[in-house]
């Protein structure tokens, strides 16, 4: 269970929902990505302008066409960029999408034009201050809101992509013959949270220091084998894999 601050709200059906709030790092990085993207678009525009022939130049020389482009560009390179994306893409600018975060209303609903305008126009006083109040508020505040979020009543939440493949049924064709005696017993042996921790370990073991990996594996294997009334397995990790596979594959 994570200790990260959460947005808690209740739906009209009285379902309590929790969304993890995005941290300062993800938000700052998403912001920088968006700034970089806008910058690259300007570079692209400059390249197109410089390699294009006289036609584009003549079009731009018309005062209304040049002005129309200039006004649109100013709108889009400022907070217009954020507003347009947040309204059209469910609270996600390209930078936020890349970092897996999005803007939501305090009641969990998607942001509309009004909320997005309010939170982004407030950048007018946050940018001259170097975002200092915003950085402090996001780092220390209980709801991680910068000034714009406070005024708009919005929060930035993390979208965790959870991989459910750990719950997939194992390949029944080739069970490890050494652990045939286990078959069908793991369901009664393991509690659901023990299964979760076991799979966490199996997923993370390539990243562990070899000694720590061996120590944890043998400790887990010894404790679980004792519950089965079996002697400690010679190779802990295949035993743990078989146990996890048997658990995931059983039950109804």
């Amino acid at each position, binding site marked *: 269970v994570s200790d990260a601050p959460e947005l808690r709200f209740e739906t009209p059906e009285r*379902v309590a*929902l929790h969304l993890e709030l995005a941290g300062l790092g993800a938000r700052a990085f998403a912001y920088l990505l968006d700034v970089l993207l806008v910058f690259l678009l300007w570079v692209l525009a400059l390249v197109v302008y410089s390699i294009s022939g006289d036609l584009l130049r003549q079009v731009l020389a018309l005062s209304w066409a040049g*002005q129309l482009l200039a006004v649109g560009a100013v709108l889009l390179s400022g907070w217009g960029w954020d507003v347009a994306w947040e309204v059209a893409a469910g609270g996600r600018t390209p930078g936020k999408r890349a970092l897996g975060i999005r803007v939501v209303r305090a009641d969990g609903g998607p942001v509309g034009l009004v909320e997005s305008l*309010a939170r982004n126009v407030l950048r007018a006083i946050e940018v001259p201050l170097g975002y200092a109040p915003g950085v402090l508020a996001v780092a220390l505040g209980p709801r991680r809101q910068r000034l714009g979020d406070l005024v708009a009543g919005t929060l930035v939440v993390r979208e965790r992509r*959870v991989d459910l493949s750990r719950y*997939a049924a194992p390949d029944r064709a080739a069970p490890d013959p050494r652990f045939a005696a286990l078959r069908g017993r793991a369901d009664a042996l393991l509690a*659901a949270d023990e299964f979760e921790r076991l799979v966490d370990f199996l997923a993370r073991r390539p990243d562990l220091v070899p000694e720590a990996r061996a120590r944890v594996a043998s400790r887990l294997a010894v404790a679980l084998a004792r519950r089965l009334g079996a002697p400690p397995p010679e190779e802990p990790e295949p035993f743990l894999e078989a146990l996890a596979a048997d658990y995931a594959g059983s*039950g109804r």
Partner: protein
Amino acid sequence: VTGGRTRNVGAFVRARRAGWERLEALAARAESGRLPLGEVRELDRLYRRAAGDLAFARGAFPGSDAEAHLAQVTARAYGALYRPHGGSAALVWRVLRVEAPAAVRGHLRALALAAALLAGAATAGALAVALDPSAAELLVPEQVRDAIAARQMWTGHLLQVAPGVSGSAIAHNNLTVAGLAFALGLTAGLGTAVLLVTNGLLLGAVLALAAQGGMAGPLLAFVAAHGPTELSALVLAAQGGFVLAGAVIDPGEWPRGAAVAAAGRAAAPLLAIVVPALALIALVESSVSPAPGLPGWAKGAVGLALAGALWAFLLAPGRALRPPS
């Protein structure tokens, strides 16, 4: 097995996963457009089932990936299901057509305060220069004074963040000024008031100085086409700032944060009018205002017509004050 649900998290996920995946797919499509009625019913049914699964997983498998996944899926479906009717464009249009006029009319005291500060400061600036021409040295930037003294047309921007910083590109950005007028409402309205007063003083002083230098005609002709709408936009943004300020100063029985958020929600539709108005008027400022062939009265007529259309749109009676439910 408990109430048709297993205590084995693997079996639980396998049994329900297809429904969650279908729910996610429907929610994604609902976010980006419209769903046929049959699929909306399916979305609703799958959402309720996922909410039930979430409640079960919270009790049976707390802290598991299955619970975390269900929380994400349910929250996303909730957002898709309870999103207001219509696509993005329809929602934007409703903000412009209904919420923005309602926000203007719902906070007339803030509007009056903003307009009075700007007009009062402009009058004071004009009077100061009229009574004592040396006041211009204090109120009007040097380059503008030089231009008027040399009888050149001054075509600088009308709005400023503060006097004396007219050289910077940011200061000339009308959008920045309007954004500041709104955002500075958080300073209990002091920042908004200072912004209005400095802009008003400058405006009045420049007009008076130009009149003394015999340049009033050309100057008025230049600003006539875009000035009224630009100043209207500033007043509207400042109105929003004062609505925020009201919540900062007197949150009533609410926590201050909640009061500010509610005021922000109430005032932000004003920005939805201010931003496009300033974008359109920037086009007028660059095409109509400097046009040498147009007589001053024609530019004035354009300017008054544009500003009049804006205010008529916002204040004309007979429009629903509340969005249709």
